[in-house]
């Protein structure tokens, strides 16, 4: 029987971590804050992957490891599996979660949202989306940490199209 952590505690911790890094430690350097948050995620993923792969045979290829992330790893973290996995068979994988738990209780600022639709370039700049993306560096880091510990160096980015759905793009480095 594994020990469990209250979900609201994790939500609050994530929120607090992001706000500490963005507003206190690296107030004017969002890209530095992002790097730090990603690094924390990396360490977490690195350690979790060691634990969750304990009782299973070694993976023979990349796809098997990605499938493990989608199914068992995601179930351990979020009590659900990844909803959709796409790949171009050339080292890029898109993992889509239709209801990503850590975004489930977040909402975009409606005033910021109203101003958006006319210009897609504006959207990228929009403050709300930028703030939201800060929260995704942590899960990105977790995925990257888990995969690199399994011997798959990769880059992970996240993409929010419509809340609370979220997709993670994994690009495996050749």
């Amino acid at each position: 029987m594994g020990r469990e952590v209250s979900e609201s505690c994790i939500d609050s911790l994530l929120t607090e971590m992001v706000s500490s890094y963005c507003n206190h430690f690296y107030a004017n350097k969002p890209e530095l804050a992002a790097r730090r948050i990603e690094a924390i995620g990396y360490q977490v993923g690195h350690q979790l992957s060691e634990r969750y792969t304990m009782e299973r045979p070694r993976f023979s290829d990349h796809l098997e490891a990605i499938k493990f992330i989608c199914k068992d790893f995601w179930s351990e973290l979020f009590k659900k599996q990844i909803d959709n996995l796409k790949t171009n068979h050339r080292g890029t994988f898109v993992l889509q979660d239709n209801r990503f738990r850590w975004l489930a209780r977040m909402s975009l600022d409606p005033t910021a949202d109203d101003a958006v639709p006319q210009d897609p370039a504006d959207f990228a700049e929009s403050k709300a989306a930028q703030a939201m993306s800060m929260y995704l560096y942590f899960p990105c880091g977790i995925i990257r940490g888990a995969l690199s510990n399994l011997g798959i160096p990769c880059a992970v980015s996240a993409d929010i199209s419509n809340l609370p759905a979220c997709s993670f793009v994994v690009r495996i480095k050749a």
Partner: protein
Amino acid sequence: MIVCVAVVGHQNNPLYIQSFTEADDALKLHHIVHCSLDVVDERVNNPKKSGPTLNETFLGLLYPTENYKVYGYLTNTKVKFILVTTDLDVRDVDVRNFFRRFHAAYVDAVSNPFHVPGKKITSRTFAERVSNIVKSFGLSST
């Protein structure tokens, strides 16, 4: 009796090595562990087995020497565990059981946020736990 256990990282860097003998033969045991790494590589690159045992973490008996038997275990994260024992008739179940508990101890040790991945494991708790596992090796069966 287990005379030596070792944890070796994915670049064949030693993470933890401990011998459990009275005699001053640590160097000899380290040498045996070192030799076994090649056997592990060989096993992994030319898997002979198929079916459910393919890619199993437990690698079984790596090689017997005159006085010792060497067993290996390779985790998903390419970390190797090596066990050197003087027992002549070792039961597979015992070794598997040992490695399972050893792996659990290792996972707990590297989950320590103060542990730097890829560096030697210096945790005293880990050392104690390992020596307990070593002491209880084979006891359950008798």
